[in-house]
């Protein structure tokens, strides 16, 4: 894979990001109710003059167009702005929450790979047997059960049967590794289950397709052992769609773990985003979404790169 290819991809992502900023900026402001409304709440102690001053202080009295340019200019100079509610630096807020979401996302992906890929392979190699059917049904249950429901079940079960298991009270890994892992176990397993179900299906389909290819048949007819054919020859090729999917999931987990972070009281980016939306804290919402978009673009690039490692036939020129 060449350097020019990467450069081209990077350059192409600039207009993408630019368009996303416009969409995000406009959509966020189209939602009725603004930050001043939320501050006032239903207990309005402020005078009309004070309310007006608040709009001015936040720069919300200017035309939307001007507001956008002020924001994008500050983003380009590396400044994501300041939270309208707490006065904190948005970039700092994101960086502070990042380790939590990152850990949650990675652990979920690990869980889902450990569960999904082996089950998918077993299911494919034992196609149309009772084992296959059982795995397929399990996968379907995983796919169709919402994360908040599975999460609730876990919380209730654990609190009923294992009273000494700590579910809440996040501590950073370096501060207390054991407690940290314990806290992450349930939420990442909950999220992992859903993704595992999808990985299982993709692995199964992809594996079945690969196994029906001529080179596999040739390898088998040459007298190679079945296991060897499956793992040495077919597995690598079957893995490509799985990698694509897993990579994209990792990106989505950053924004999509909102419900789980809320439920398990984890101070991650998803919860920050939810809170910012509830409070109409524009700079925070815009900052987080921009961050997630950039992250997904970078992840996509990385996935392409991993392709070339897994399958040398893939040429990214």
């Amino acid at each position: 894979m060449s350097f020019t290819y990467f450069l081209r991809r990077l350059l192409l992502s600039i207009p993408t990001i630019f368009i996303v900023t416009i969409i995000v900026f406009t959509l966020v402001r189209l939602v009725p109710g603004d930050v001043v409304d939320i501050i006032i709440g239903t207990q309005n102690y402020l005078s009309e003059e004070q309310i007006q001053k608040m709009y001015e202080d936040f720069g919300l009295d200017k035309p939307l167009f001007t507001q956008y340019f002020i924001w994008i200019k500050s983003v380009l100079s590396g400044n994501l702005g300041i939270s309208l509610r707490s006065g904190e630096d948005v970039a700092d807020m994101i960086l502070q929450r990042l380790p939590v979401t990152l850990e949650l996302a990675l652990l979920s992906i690990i869980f889902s790979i450990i569960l999904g890929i082996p089950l998918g392979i077993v299911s494919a190699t034992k196609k149309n047997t009772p084992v296959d059917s059982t795995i397929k049904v399990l996968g379907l249950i995983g796919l169709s059960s919402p994360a908040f429901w599975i999460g609730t079940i876990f919380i209730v079960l654990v609190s009923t049967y294992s009273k000494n298991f700590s579910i809440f009270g996040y501590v950073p890994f370096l501060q207390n590794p054991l407690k940290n892992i314990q806290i992450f176990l349930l939420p990442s397993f909950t999220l992992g289950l859903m993704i595992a179900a999808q990985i299982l299906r993709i692995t199964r389909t992809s594996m079945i397709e690969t196994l029906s290819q001529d080179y596999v048949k040739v390898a088998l007819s040459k007298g190679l052992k079945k296991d060897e054919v499956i793992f040495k020859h077919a597995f690598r090729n079957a893995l490509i769609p799985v990698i694509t999917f897993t990579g994209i999931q990792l990106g989505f987990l950053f924004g999509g773990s909102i419900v789980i972070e809320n439920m398990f009281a984890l101070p991650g980016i998803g919860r920050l985003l939810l809170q910012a939306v509830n409070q109409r804290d524009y700079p925070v919402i815009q900052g987080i979404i921009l961050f997630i978009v950039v992250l997904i673009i970078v992840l996509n690039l990385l996935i392409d790169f991993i392709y070339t490692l897994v399958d040398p036939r893939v040429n990214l020129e």
Partner: protein
Amino acid sequence: MKKVFFVILMITLLFGAFGFSQKSGGTLQIGIETEPIGLDPHLVTAFSSFRILENIYDGLLKYDENMNLVPNIAEKYEIPDPYTIIFTIRDNVYFHNGDKLTLDDIIFSFERIRDKDVGSPAATYYVEVESISIVGPNKIQFKLKVPMVNSLLPNFASVNSAIVSKKFVTSGHNLQLETNGTGPFYLYQYMTGNHITLNKNNNYFISEQPYLDKIVFRIIPEEISRATALRNKDVDLIEVKEPLTLRSLPTNNYKTFKKPSLSYYLLGYNTTREPFTNPSIRSALSLAINREEIINMVAFGEGSITGPLNPTLKPWALPPSSFEEYEYNIEKAKKILSDNGYPNGFEFDLVVSNRYSLDKIAQVIQSQLAKINVKVNIDLVEWGIFISKWRNSDFDAFVSLNSGSIDPDIQFYRTFHSGGSTNVFLYSNPIVDKLLQDGRTEIDVSKRIQIYNQLQKILVKESPILFLYSPNIIYAGQNYVEGFTPLANESLIFLRETWLNK
């Protein structure tokens, strides 16, 4: 032998008693729903910020358990005439950074609140203050333009009137991010989205308080998660928002702390939209809504019916049973509707959000009004949209939760005066306006009571809003949590007197 036994018994009892009175030390973990939004006591408007900050900052006055105003930083106050309040300030108050509190800090704090550029919501409380001056070695005098000392006093207990350090603020510290108060605890660590740790202020002006070494506020947004955290002993105390949760916490294992709150649920009408322009129609709906049933269905009995003023607010409140419009009488309601041109009922939109169980209350109201052929279309919207509609009076009717106040003026004036800041019902009645003005400036308490009695009767008769009920404030905790009591205004000020008996 008996003597020996007696001595042993006495010693045991003594130790037992001593052990029991051991109130100091320990960390209290408390599970709360929402995290604070900003830390500047003069700027915050969110309850979630108040609850943290009232343990870090002090005002001149505070509330006791029964919501009576008692001295705090001020050791006493005098009211020589209805235009004047003189506070005598304690001599042993220190900020968390070690600086001694001076009268200058107090003057500075109120100047900061009143400063237009600061934009403090409390500025409106102090509009009628003419001057604040030092009138003795430890005395500060507030001089008012109008004789409204009575309705001004409660504001001194608000977090928005906390005393800050002049030196700290003017040297460029950002109070939204840093704190320096005189309260029983100081902010030790704030990990956003996760927890807030307050440590004991060893220099607090009440020498034996606070009892706890540390309070950790754990932010756990989901109710089921908070209850689980309590059961798993991840926390010692939790905020209970849904009374249903109490059923999963058996009383022999857990303690509950309850207080009727001053807040009240209300059904508000847009009095400029048909048919709610007609007070008779509004009061007909009052007759058809069974508020007892709402409390039972939505709050599982954890609440009490209220009139315009919370029944616990003595001597101001008239009991809810004294209003004939608040009896439950469907036939009478139907008759009024038909007398006023709606024999077949009518239809209206009811705006609610899913916060504070507003949507559930709306559902009960919907089914109750169906009995008098009034069709309610529930318009369930997100909170931000709700507030936007509320502010712009863009509704036929809505259900909401308002905070009450210990002084009727604070609660009524902004709500019912023509053009009042929360008069989104667009209600306007010259008699009400006059009474509100008189109540605000009347000095004689018994005359003031007369005024507000009359006002309450008019408000119920005219029903620009129907007062539904006041929910109970509920906390649940481990059995060893002692000394804690929530206040009717949802304050957590009693954390300074809380201790762990374990």
